């Protein structure tokens, strides 16, 4: 009886607070459904909030995302649980029951004003995961400038327990005694919008990521191109030089059986082309070369965007990169198969290389379903039972999927997918009444 009293009841649980989760949650909330949105990170916003601009329109990504984040947090029908993990989900009649663990951030979410005085006094500096390790952050930190909620969190694994933050906090928000909170829930439907994982560039050992500091991955370049960038402008991480000859290596970790990901990631060609255009703006004197297998410019306006980029003198070389070697001055020598000129192996020197890393499935959520199997497709994305007619249906009745949890796709398709999923969820719940 006690437990029953503690159970929080909602119509829908949306798992994941990225663009797909926010879109679906808002759609459903506006239809009058009560939503619980569970996000594993400190802030909602997903990966999109960290991007510079979107292709092919070059609209500011954060300017699109932040109003949606804000609307999600203010919507009365949506309850958000950030820094939370779903431990189990079980089917019980027409409902799902389960448990969420809200992990402690050691800062009171209700009273923290996000003033960052705690950051100023914290002596620890560790890699900032939100800037993809290009700079440091403190052990107590606001995750990123436009985080929602804008509340500090303590990384206890790197905290030296000096207590400086607690002394300086004007709102008395620091609480090192905070414990994980267990939340029991009952929902009618579950919508999975957990997004994707980024391919680990270090797995392509021949490209030298990690060993050669001037080889970075596309998200690191993306961060260098945003206004809240880690450096003062686009710079080489090794020596702070402003690069003037940048290479892109497409299909890093996509269409590549040797790393276990044989499929196309759908977005790498276009985001590389977008970054090339942005680089031409940020570094007008720089040369940009894109090494590709095929350019897949398949969406509305994509081909024109590609053509425009070629007209801006970005060089496109059809060639598969075999290996990259670092020279003494930090420049990089690329060995590639020149496909359009007889397939000979050629070399080219660049002062910075960007690896256009692909998307990988994020299917961890499958393990929380205790009594029924959430099936995966052959590429380990959440299986869409009826891809053409009901794309959000999964193998479990009442569990739906949206966005890149189901397959690689770009932002407009993700938003469309979330819209379709919210309609399917609404139809399902109404069919039970």
């Amino acid at each position, binding site marked *: 009886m006690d437990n029953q009293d503690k159970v929080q009841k909602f119509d829908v649980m949306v798992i994941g607070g990225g663009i797909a989760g926010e879109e679906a949650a808002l759609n459903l909330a506006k239809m009058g459904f009560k939503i619980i949105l569970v996000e594993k990170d400190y802030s909602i916003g997903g990966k999109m909030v960290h991007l510079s601009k979107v292709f092919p329109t070059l609209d500011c990504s954060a300017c699109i995302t932040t109003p949606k984040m804000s609307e999600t947090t203010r919507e009365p029908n949506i309850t958000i649980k950030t820094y939370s993990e779903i431990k189990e989900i079980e089917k019980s009649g027409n409902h799902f029951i389960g448990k969420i663990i809200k992990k402690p951030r050691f800062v009171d979410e209700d009273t923290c004003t996000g003033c960052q005085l705690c*950051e*100023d006094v914290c*002596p*620890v*500096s*560790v890699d900032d995961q939100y800037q993809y390790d*290009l*700079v*440091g952050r403190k*052990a107590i930190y606001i995750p990123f400038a436009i985080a929602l909620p804008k509340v500090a969190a303590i990384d*206890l*694994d*790197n*905290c*030296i*327990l*000096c*207590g400086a933050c*607690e*002394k300086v*906090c004007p709102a*008395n928000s*620091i*609480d*090192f*005694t905070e414990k994980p909170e267990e939340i029991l829930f009952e929902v009618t439907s579950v919508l999975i919008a957990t997004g994707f994982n980024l391919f680990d560039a270090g797995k392509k050992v021949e490209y030298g990521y990690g060993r050669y*500091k001037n080889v970075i991955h596309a998200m690191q370049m993306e961060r260098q191109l945003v206004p809240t960038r*880690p*450096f*003062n*402008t686009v*710079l*080489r*991480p*090794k*020596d*702070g*030089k*402003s690069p*003037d000859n940048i290479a892109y290596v497409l299909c890093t970790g996509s269409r590549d059986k040797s790393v276990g990901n044989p499929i196309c990631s759908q977005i790498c060609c276009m985001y590389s082309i977008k970054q090339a255009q942005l680089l031409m703006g940020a570094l007008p*004197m720089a040369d940009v070369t894109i090494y590709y297998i095929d350019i897949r410019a398949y969406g509305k306006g994509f081909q024109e965007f590609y053509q425009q980029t070629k007209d801006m003198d970005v060089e496109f070389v059809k060639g598969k990169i075999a290996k990259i070697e670092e020279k003494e001055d*930090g420049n990089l020598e690329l060995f590639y198969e020149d496909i359009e000129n007889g397939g000979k192996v050629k070399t080219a020197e660049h002062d910075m290389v960007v690896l256009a890393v692909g998307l990988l499935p994020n299917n961890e959520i499958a393990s929380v379903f205790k009594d029924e199997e959430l099936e995966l497709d052959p590429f380990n994305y959440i299986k869409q039972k009826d891809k053409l007619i009901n794309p959000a249906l999964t193998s479990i009745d009442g569990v739906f999927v949206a966005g890149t949890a189901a397959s690689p796709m770009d932002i407009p398709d993700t938003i469309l997918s979330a819209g379709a999923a919210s309609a399917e969820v609404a139809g399902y719940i109404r069919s039970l009444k």
Partner: protein
Amino acid sequence: MENKKQKTVDILKETRKASENGKIRVKEFMGIKKKIKASLKLESKTIPQIIDETKLDASFVTYSLMTMMKYGDVQVDKIDDDDEYYFYKLKEVK
């Protein structure tokens, strides 16, 4: 109120030790911060000039200098004549 503020970290200390990695990173960062500040004390410098002077690892200097810039210790001064390297200077404390 002051007692209450002091209390939570002390309570945690009874059951948990300070992070060893955190201690190493503090020492490391404080050390390089001191060297970079000393290097920039008299005039603004580029990253290669700081590297030459301090004999520290190049990428570590860039990483640390940019972290210092993030936290308001240094700022950009100007760019060199070849438009290759920026000069950085200590931020004036008002």
